[in-house]
């Protein structure tokens, strides 16, 4: 699976960071979320899915690879 953030939609709510801090981050230098690991391992699917679904503005997309 691969996860992407749409920079035009992200408003830095950071729900994804709360749900899956190993895979998403908010840096002081950027107004949008950074994807730390674009292709998370299958073993971490639950938290990545939760992160994607927790985005209030649907800025995250999970693509099956």
């Amino acid at each position: 699976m691969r996860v992407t953030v749409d920079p035009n939609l992200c408003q830095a709510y950071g729900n994804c960071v709360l749900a899956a801090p190993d895979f998403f981050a908010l840096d002081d230098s950027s107004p949008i979320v950074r994807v730390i690991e674009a292709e998370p391992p299958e073993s971490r699917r639950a938290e990545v899915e939760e992160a994607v679904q927790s985005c209030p503005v649907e800025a995250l997309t999970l693509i099956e690879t």
Partner: protein
Amino acid sequence: MQVRRIVIVGASLAGLRAAEGLRRAGFDGELVLVGEETHQPYDRPPLSKAFMRGLPDGTSLELRQSDALAAEWMLGRRAVHLDRQGKRIELSDGSRVPYDGLVIATGSAARTLPEIPTGAAGVHLLRTLDDAVALRRELSGSPRLAVVGGGFIGSELASTCRDLGLDTTVITPLPLLAGPLGPLAEAATARARDHGVHVIEAAVVGADVGDRISGVRLDNGVTVAADVVVVAVGAVAQTGWLQGSGVQLSNGVVCDDTLAVLGLPDAVAAGDVVRWPHPAAGGALLRIEHWTNAAEQATAAAKRLLLGPGAAFAPVPSFWSDQFGIRIQGVGLTALADEAIVVDGDPAGDSFVAEYRSAGRLVGAVVGGAAGSVTALLPYRRELSRLLRAAATS
């Protein structure tokens, strides 16, 4: 249970996410969504904010839907009765919908006040897209606005209406956001006042209504003159259609800790309508109206329905609210706290971090500030998760 046909009653965030969760978990049978509103599932949080300001052209409130959903939509119809023996739902248009598996996601409806006639011209609720369209139409005439209620919706709407330049009064017996912010709610009231909102701490005792509403009478003897009055005094779980069905109802649909509905086989529930025991509240029944809860709970409920009982649903709740120039975000159950400790900044100012504790134990944390401030909540969420795991195994 041979599940060939799952009916989801409720077609908002929880209903949609339950449908997606079922498909992701491998359900390939018939999937039916019943919704009282005529709209496809849409996002409610913007109704008190961006939608009132006017959405940019081309933006839609409709929630993203997976192409693989393959659902049958029965919209514009309300569930009115559940036949538990026949495993059928009766709808407001007289049709009957059979199910093998059921997801109850009927959400909540705006509470009304007996003192303010909801049918009078100029009186509005703010729960649905249709509510929001009707209110927005009236706001364009630069009315004097009175918002009754100081929760998330009342407070956000007041903020938006100040941005729009309207004369805005909030009437609330408690300080703003008293539920989620507890001891720091006075600071939220102060911030609203700084932004030019008249906040009046009083209870409503009546309304002046002629051709339309013209004022709200308060228990302190004051009458607030207003052209438009929005009643935003919370929400009640939509369970009327389940009366007499055997489903256990108590300020919501009572579920076990895996979201299975008590008193009804082959049924789960998700979203605002659910009351379920949460270990962070010592196993007490909670009903949580946050967006994030509906989204998470629906996914868990879908798995529970298809795969049977697994782990208890025991998330760290979280919420956000954009208002008066800052974003307020929280984790945990701040309403359980008996003290709030400001560890950084000023809760009435532009940024702050506060810990919420009950008998000294961490129960939640709240941050206020610019977008991105949420990272200050990370250590608290981690600690709350750890406490939850400990509570679950003890």
